[in-house]
């Protein structure tokens, strides 16, 4: 058997499928090397380890993503626990010397908490980065206030040198490009980003980063249950390749917030009614506003008269922004602000130090939240002796702080007798061991109310259900807890879940679709072959020619391809000879073959032509016998390339010979 190739050129019709590309090595350090359709998403959480054990979100967030050849830095946070170099991410991982600009396409900041934006001026001004920095409008407004406060404490109070200056913060903020919710921003021709609402704090956003058909969603910190001033995080079914989610509460399912609120209000109400004073130590931004709204509306509803004070400082400026960015708050505040902006507090007034000694009931919000210094500590010292009073700790307290001690039921406190110099509005300030101690008896009631604004385990799962990612990546949490959530995610959604350690890189291979232009005529022709009902769910095979030219892919009909390429059409035919032992004459053999094929190949058109050939579809069969051996017939089969399947089937069939019981007709 021989195959005879009659023609030379072969126009191979190809089946269009989504081409699978293969993983290439991550190319973070060399941006130019990244190819056109490299589809690995490269992530690393910048160096050194988490502060574990504290269990709080004080770690610094900084994630580098490489997607479709673009390098993006997500958040640029600092660590509150260190006072040395370790407080900032190690940018030398990206480049040993020189500026970062050429290695990063953009920087995205999710919200204004310092563990997400604290290192920003350091990175942009001191290490050097001139590219765009993206953040939402409220974040852009509030972020510099916090940075400036942070700088003041570090430099002015603690006297550190080699720190960023006010001017640097200003310069840094000039590089910021504001984002609107759901607005798609084109960073460059290929890279686009889009912000989603995240709850958590004012202006917090989740970001979708997209290059071509590959995408990553970074959540930052988010909250899936609405509170008194912010709504719940929301994202559409964007099906990213990776969802990078925080997992602070990976192993917690929280109770309904209504119970917490009710308890809080009841406690405050009862204390005020019996003439006691309530102290609520808070962080200046975020929870404080929620509690303010809660108390303000309660006062309004219940027609209460006792004064509520808020210790001044940062807060006034911040409240101003809360008033401005009404669109970022929850439904109630958004709907009623025309009548009255909820942040224009009627009952909450600015606090003055002298008020603490006023008789009668009052409620005071004072910073800092952990009761380690400043105004909250001063007031606490004044009020601690009276059992009518109450202190409500609305957040977590780090070990060693007074807040932590009293929460654990300590009734006698040893205090350093330091005449507090600071006016203490800052969170960052930490109490230092003093010299002279004095003991304080704690008689007031101590209550703990958790008002955290992170998604709990159920919330995280809910977000995954909303976004339907293909892979999951957990950050911003403790390894042990993440392990549990990881198992759950893999089990419930059957997707891969990663939890990289600091400095570790995770690579995910994606399956990007390659867009191909198809000619309309070809599409219509192929459509006409299908049934009446278009079925989008089923992939369909079609014939055409793929032309790759000038960085574009087109699918056209073979004829057009030939025309465009200026080539002649050639046909490829296979011919094969089969020898057969048959005593009949040639025409008889042919008719026997005809009968045989007819019985075997039902449903095919088989013709016995008068010129001595049998045609099966387009396959031609001829019979000839050699002169020497009349019983040995030679069958000549010839088929075109398209009928290869049928052709080879026939040749095998005929090789087996004809069955004996065949009549020659």
């Amino acid at each position: 058997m021989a195959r005879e190739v009659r023609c030379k050129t072969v126009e191979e019709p190809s089946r269009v499928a989504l081409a699978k590309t293969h993983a290439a090595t991550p190319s973070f350090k060399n941006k130019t090397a990244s190819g056109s359709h490299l589809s690995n998403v490269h992530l690393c959480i910048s160096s050194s380890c988490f502060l574990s054990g504290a269990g709080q979100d004080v770690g610094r967030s900084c994630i580098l993503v490489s997607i479709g050849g673009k390098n993006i830095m997500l958040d640029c946070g600092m660590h509150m626990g260190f006072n040395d170099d370790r407080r900032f991410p190690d940018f030398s991982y990206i480049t040993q010397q020189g500026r970062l600009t050429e290695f990063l396409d953009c920087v995205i900041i999710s919200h204004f908490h310092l563990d997400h934006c604290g290192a920003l001026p350091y990175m942009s001004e001191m290490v050097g980065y001139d590219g765009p920095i993206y953040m939402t409008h409220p974040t852009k407004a509030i972020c510099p206030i916090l940075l400036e406060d942070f700088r003041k404490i570090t430099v002015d109070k603690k006297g550190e040198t080699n720190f960023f200056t006010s001017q640097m913060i200003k310069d840094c903020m000039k590089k910021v490009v504001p984002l609107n919710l759901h607005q798609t921003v084109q960073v460059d021709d290929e890279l686009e980003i889009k912000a989603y609402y995240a709850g958590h704090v004012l202006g917090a956003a989740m970001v979708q980063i997209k290059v071509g058909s590959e995408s990553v969603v970074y959540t930052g910190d988010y909250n899936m249950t609405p509170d008194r001033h912010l709504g719940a995080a929301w994202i559409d079914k964007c099906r990213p390749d990776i969802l990078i989610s925080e997992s602070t509460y990976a192993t917690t399912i929280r109770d309904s917030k209504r119970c917490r609120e009710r308890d809080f209000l009841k406690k405050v109400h009862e204390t005020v009614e019996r003439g006691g004073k309530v102290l609520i130590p808070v962080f200046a931004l975020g929870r404080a506003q929620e509690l303010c709204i809660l108390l303000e509306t309660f006062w309004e509803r219940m027609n209460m008269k006792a004064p509520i004070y808020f210790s001044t400082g940062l807060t006034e400026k911040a409240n101003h922004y809360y008033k401005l960015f009404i669109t970022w708050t929850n439904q109630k505040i958004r709907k009623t602000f025309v009548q009255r902006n909820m942040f224009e507090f009627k009952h909450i007034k600015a606090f003055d130090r002298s008020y603490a000694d006023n008789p009668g009931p009052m409620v005071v919000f004072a910073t800092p939240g952990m009761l380690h210094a400043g105004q909250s500590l001063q007031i606490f010292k004044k009020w601690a002796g009276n059992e009518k009073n109450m202190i409500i700790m609305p957040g977590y307290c780090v070990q060693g702080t007074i807040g932590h001690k009293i929460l654990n039921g300590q009734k006698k406190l040893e205090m350093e007798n330091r005449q507090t110099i600071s006016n203490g509005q800052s969170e960052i300030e930490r109490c230092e061991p003093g010299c002279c101690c004095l003991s304080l008896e704690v008689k007031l009631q101590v209550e703990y109310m958790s008002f955290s604004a992170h998604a709990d385990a159920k919330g995280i799962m809910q977000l995954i259900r909303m976004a339907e990612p293909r892979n999951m990546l957990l950050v911003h949490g403790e390894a042990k807890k993440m392990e549990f959530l990881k198992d759950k995610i893999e089990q419930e959604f059957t997707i891969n879940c990663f939890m990289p350690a600091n400095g570790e890189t995770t690579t995910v291979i994606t399956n990007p679709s390659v867009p191909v232009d198809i000619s309309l005529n070809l599409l219509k022709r192929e459509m006409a072959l299908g049934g009446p009902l278009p079925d989008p769910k089923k992939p369909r095979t079609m014939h055409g020619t793929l032309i790759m030219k000038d960085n574009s892919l087109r699918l056209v009909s073979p004829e057009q391809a030939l025309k465009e390429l200026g080539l002649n059409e050639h046909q490829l035919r296979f011919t094969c000879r089969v020898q057969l032992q048959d005593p009949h004459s040639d025409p008889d053999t042919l008719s026997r073959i005809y009968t045989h094929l007819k019985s075997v190949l039902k449903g095919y058109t088989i013709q016995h032509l008068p010129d001595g050939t049998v045609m099966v579809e387009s396959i031609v069969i001829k019979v000839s016998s050699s002169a020497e051996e009349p019983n040995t017939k030679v069958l000549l089969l010839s088929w075109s390339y398209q009928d290869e399947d049928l052709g080879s089937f026939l040749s095998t069939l005929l090789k087996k010979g004809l069955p004996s019981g065949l009549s020659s007709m």
Partner: protein
Amino acid sequence: SYNTSKPLPQEEAPAKKLRLTKPSKSAALHIDLCKASNPTDALQYLLHFARSSVEAESVEGVVRILLEHYYKEQDNSVRLKIASLIGLLSKTQNFNPESILDDTLNTFNTEKSHQVLAQLLDTLLVIGTQLPESLIVRHRLIEVAYKHLSDTYFGVRNKCLQLLGCLGNVDTPLNKDGQGLVPAVIGDAQSLISDYFADQDPRVRTAAIKAMLQLHERGLKIQQTIYDQACQLLCDDYEQVRSAAVQMVWVLSQLYPESIVPIPSSNEQVRLVDDSFGKISHMVSDGSWVVRVQAAKTLGNMLQVSPHFLEQTLDKKLMSDLRRKRTAHERAKELYASGEFSSGRKWADDAPKEKVDTSAVNLIASGACGAFVHGLEDEMYEVRIAAVDALSALAQSSASFAEKCLDFLVDMFNDEIEEVRLQSIHVLRQISTNITLREDQLDTVLAVLEDSSRDIREALHELLCFTNVSTKECIQLALLELLKNLTKYPTDRNSVWKCLKFLGCRHPTLVLPLVPELLSTHPYFHTPEPDMDDPAYIAVLVLVFNAAQSCPTMTALFSDHTFRHYTYLRDSLSHLVPPLRLPGRTQAPGVSGIEGSGSVESAQLFLQQSLSRISTIHNLQDPGAQDLLNFTIRDLQRLGELQTELAGAADFSATYLRCQLLLTKALQEKLWTMAVPLCLKHNAMATAAAKQMLEETYKLEFLYSGLENRQVATIHHVRLQAKALQLVLTARTRRGVEPLISVCEKFLQEVESFQRLFVVELPHLQESFVGKLLDLSPKLSACKPGELVKILQTTLRQSGFLNLQLPKQVQRASATIIEPTGESDNPLRFTSGLVVALDIDATLEHVQDPHNTVKVQVLYPDGQSHVIQPKPGDFRSPGPHRHRLITQVYLSHSAWTEACQIEVRLLLAYSSSRLCKAVWSDSSTEGLQPAEGATEGTIPFGKPVKVFIMPKPARR
């Protein structure tokens, strides 16, 4: 008429078309369309044409002209407009759209544009829905729909599905062979539609589901086989599809609640209704709030769900750091059970206890888990309200669920949106028959009593009226909080008292041990007598007396002054203090008649007796009749005050009798025997009586609800009497005949319309004034004014007394202005010429349709008055037959030298024409349009309130 409509195509017009061509519209349109040089012009003409109306006779002609242009027109938008116009025209009243069906169907043969096709299908839909009976038409339309189902444009597919949904065969296909008119495929619209559940366009998917729902609504039994498909659609990418799918799943769950469906990836099976309940519960945490609202609402309609699944909706397993945690609700319950309820909670007493088995924790809410917990916490208040409503519906059908959802509802009392708070209070009231509040729950409920919103407080009082509590401490707690409420908001007085009345009634045994403490009696010492005017003391007494009603031993604990106070309160606040059987005490003699037994039945009896006593009067001129009337009116008035249930009926009768009394008095005046010139002075009294009678009749007719035709006839009869009296008086005072003629004519017209309106009632009116008048009626219309007056005068005197038949239930409309109270001495100051807003808060009872009838009148000291119509949104309906008006009226006046009082009152506007239509449209045989003699006016009701205002001169 043919000539004027010349443009009609003669060559192709068969004769019957000519009949239709009323020249005007169609011709003008045709000319316009011919004139139009470009599509924009044509479109303008069509738009213009669409604004005018077309008579039923000329519709067919117009459609033909439109179609003619349709075929000529190249531009898609013009053709589209024409298609939509045809749809509009087919809706013309009295027009049978079947006549244009063929022509419309023909257009499909040539149409190429998808948009126009969609519009044409829409037109078919309009035509088809107007001819629901014609099976042939429906089949033809469905055929068209089927043909275009595979169109590539989503709009066309949409409309086709809509057509199938609205017109598809609902009955099982009769001829299964697919013979004749009904091809098999048309018979089975269901499977055809379900094919499009998987369409690539979300809009088509939505349309397919909606079409299926439409079929269901039209009575088709949807097959269970599509359940799986519908469930898959719940995960669709598009919210409108998911929302519709929720409905679809619900419909199926109602059709096949007991079918068994397998749970995927396990061998277990569940009832279909439970399965779908789980799936819809899942949707409560959907990404789109529209779907969440839909899902939450739907849950409320799934009453057949198994209790096991139902209770899961309130379940949310808490954990902290992988340790199981109890919810605050569970902790509260335990604390309560351990008797440590009041102790303050400490940090970490919610500390997690046992370790959680990690594999057992189900993070993603599978099934119904925690659906309501999520729904009630939702960001959008629409979802929360829907969830509260659903809870209510489910709790009403299941007592155990009601018990469980109590905590959650109570939590909702703290919601940030008042509407939600209010709704949850209402819901708790609705389910309160099923539950008993625990002390800690009651504590939370009572905390809301301090709310500054009156709505909320009143709703809460209402709730407390229906609440069952378990211990005497609860009663004490409730009383304490209510008294606190009373001191904080003194205006709540009545509401609080009422609340305590019911609280006492419901829990006599719980109140009993509290009595000594409540009344501060002491076994040895006399305690000072409390102040009888103290609202708080009255509140306590109301509670105790109502409890004592069913607890006879309680009275033994009363001290002397308590009995005295009882007598006083029984008289002054009879609606709050029940009659008590007091040992050794006799009732005051004056009131023994009715009050003795105090029951409604005896009062009813008394009412009947009084009325039947009156009925012994045959003629009002009888001696003694006046006295009898006088006494009866007095009795009835007193009865009305004592027995609130009968107040309406008693007032109604009294007013009626007063009218009769007035008439009698007027007729007995000496003036009738006097010479005309001398009687001017006496005349004044009779005229006033006539006028008052007239006013009273309007009150009778419009202020009372529950009147039947019979009573209305009686009222109208009195009105005729009053008018006759007026007429007679006019005749005696006025000189000249001219004005009299028109007055007489008017009167006769009224008699006539009375006759027409009350044909049914006439037999009962034989002996009455009208009856006698009608006997003379042929003569009346012919006679001169002078004669008529004479006839009227004698008939008035001779006619018998018309007995009043009371209907079953008569209620008097009443209004109370709560705000402003009229007690303030501080004038409302404002700059003259500018406006000041005055807040008005009033409750209305038994007012029908207050949005249209109730108005606010402001009377200034100078006699100026303004009538203000409140906005419909200012009315709320807190209970049956009850409305609350909370509005603002704007005052303004020129400057005054000192503060002065203005009067604010509520008016009930009436219009006889409106009511006539409403009452008699069903009883009358022919379509009565009582346009003639429609009187409009207003009746002041409720006490007016005085407000101090002080417009200051503007400072320059």
